[in-house]
């Protein structure tokens, strides 16, 4: 009994030490935004000696262009929300098609679907850029190069994740609904989608996180400063200020991370995203 307790204690100590290291950067980030720039790096502790709100006040001030923090935040969600919605629709339809039906060339198409998961996006940037340039989509006000490929189920990892979940739902449900006169689209909407709700939730959250974190896409396809999303703005802010106003830069970072943290806790409450992709 004593050994068990000692082992549990040891486990607790290791986990707590690990957690402290893991969370330290984030805690330091928050504390740094309340420090003066002269104090920011000379002090190793977590609590500011004198609290100042300069960093936060300046974070909302413009750098004197057409772009500001709030505008960049809005731009990010102008990309992310439509992209998420269209991804959900196209990914669900594609996964449904692959999981439930036979059609000519299915084996080949399935192989292609799985292969694209391992096709690095970086490889595609150059030829896609040339394509979008031809189409006149560079710097499109509707962010077409960022949204359209995803709206056509381009993120195939998500399709595969959903295929697995649809396969785990017994076909008996479909049959029963068909006998009651449902067509295949109605079966998807009334029978499968309600059961898939937790997975669809994690698909949406994942796509939202990826989009918000994406930097290279906007770097290539968004040219007008007024249309910059947050990721580009954060880098801009760092380049403009590093060396003297780090508290301002870090406050910008803090705000940039906040929506993701809120989203994380909100999605944890309604559905456990960790079960995503694995339940067979």
């Amino acid at each position, binding site marked *: 009994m004593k050994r068990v307790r000692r082992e549990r204690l040891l486990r607790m100590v290791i986990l707590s030490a690990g957690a402290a290291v893991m969370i330290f950067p*984030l805690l330091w980030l928050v504390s740094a935004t309340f420090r003066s720039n002269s104090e920011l790096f000379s002090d190793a502790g977590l609590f500011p000696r004198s609290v100042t709100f300069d960093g936060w006040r300046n974070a909302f001030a413009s750098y004197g262009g057409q772009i500001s923090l709030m505008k960049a935040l809005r731009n990010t969600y102008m990309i992310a929300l439509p992209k998420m919605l269209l991804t959900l629709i*196209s990914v669900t339809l594609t996964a449904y098609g692959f999981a439930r039906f*036979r059609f*000519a060339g299915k084996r080949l198409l399935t192989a292609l679907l799985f292969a694209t998961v391992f096709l690095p996006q970086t490889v595609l940037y150059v030829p896609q850029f040339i394509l979008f340039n031809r189409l006149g989509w560079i710097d499109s006000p509707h962010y077409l190069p960022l949204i359209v490929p995803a709206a*056509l189920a381009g993120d195939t990892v998500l399709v595969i994740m959903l295929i697995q979940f649809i396969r785990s739902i017994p076909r008996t449900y479909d049959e029963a609904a068909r006998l009651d006169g449902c067509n295949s689209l109605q079966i998807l909407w009334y029978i499968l989608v309600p059961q898939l709700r937790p997975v669809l939730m994690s698909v949406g959250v994942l796509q939202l996180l990826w989009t918000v974190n994406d930097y290279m896409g906007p770097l290539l396809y968004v040219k007008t400063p007024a249309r910059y999303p947050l990721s580009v703005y954060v880098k801009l802010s760092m380049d403009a200020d590093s060396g003297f106003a780090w508290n301002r830069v870090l406050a910008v970072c803090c705000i940039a991370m906040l929506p993701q943290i809120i989203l994380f806790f909100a999605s944890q409450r309604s559905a456990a995203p960790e079960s995503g992709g694995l339940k067979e």
Partner: protein
Amino acid sequence: MLNQNRSAGFLRRNRHLLYILPWLIGFLIFQAAPMLYSLICGFTDFNLFRGVSQTGMMNYVRIFEDSETMHSIGLTLKFAFLSVPLKIGAALLCAALLAKQLRGIRIFRTLYYLPSILGGSVAASVLWKAMFRDHGVVNAMLTALHLPVHSWLAEPHSAMWTIILLRVWEFGSPMLMLLAALQQIPQEYADAAALDGAGKLRTFFSVKLPMISPVLYYNLMLGFCAAMQEFNAPFVITDGGPRGATTLFSLLLYRSAFTANEMGYACALAWVLFLLSASVSAGFLLLRRRFVYDPDGEAKA
């Protein structure tokens, strides 16, 4: 007439093809066509402003003659083969520690998971730069502990390790998957192993680890895929420096294509990256049969 009937029959039999049509169109336009185009483009010296003036193998010859490019390929492989196993290893360790009933397990899970949703963002890279710069908080802590300070980002070796550390910091999401897999293993398996006289460590490595190997494999493979195209961290934290020590392949690609506007050369680079990741993936597929537990295979046997 007959032909018309046949095509009508084809459409009727395959009407469910409609469901995957959006993906198929997107695949053809945004993936297959660009890949093909870049294959052709790689054999030219296409420049967005000057057009094409020369064709042939010269891009590929240049890639293998350019020591900077070869160096960058080496760095990318080094980055992938260090960061991914470390990340998955940390994930596995924490998942194993968390797999027991424990007070506060939810809090630990949340704390470990949080960095993985933030780490990919530019903001996290900026934070890293702030922490590891010469007058950063890491050095301030070292000074407080009376340890020698270090120029983390100015020294080639440590600059690379700083970026690796950022990626290892994000181990939360593989950890959750591994944890879920560990918790699904029936307790009887561990009990049976204990009856046979296996200790805790032995049980973990000989019974549990093989059972979660599919999840482990999946995470390693996706991890490598992501690591081979790492861009944000070296671009923001070190801008490829010092002296090219963190110029990973995608950074090189970005510069050739969008700073130097050498699209033809960049297409060739992209194909080299593609072949490189494809061969790493192929290596993984070969290893799969050997090391990954297949529950269906056992059921059949």
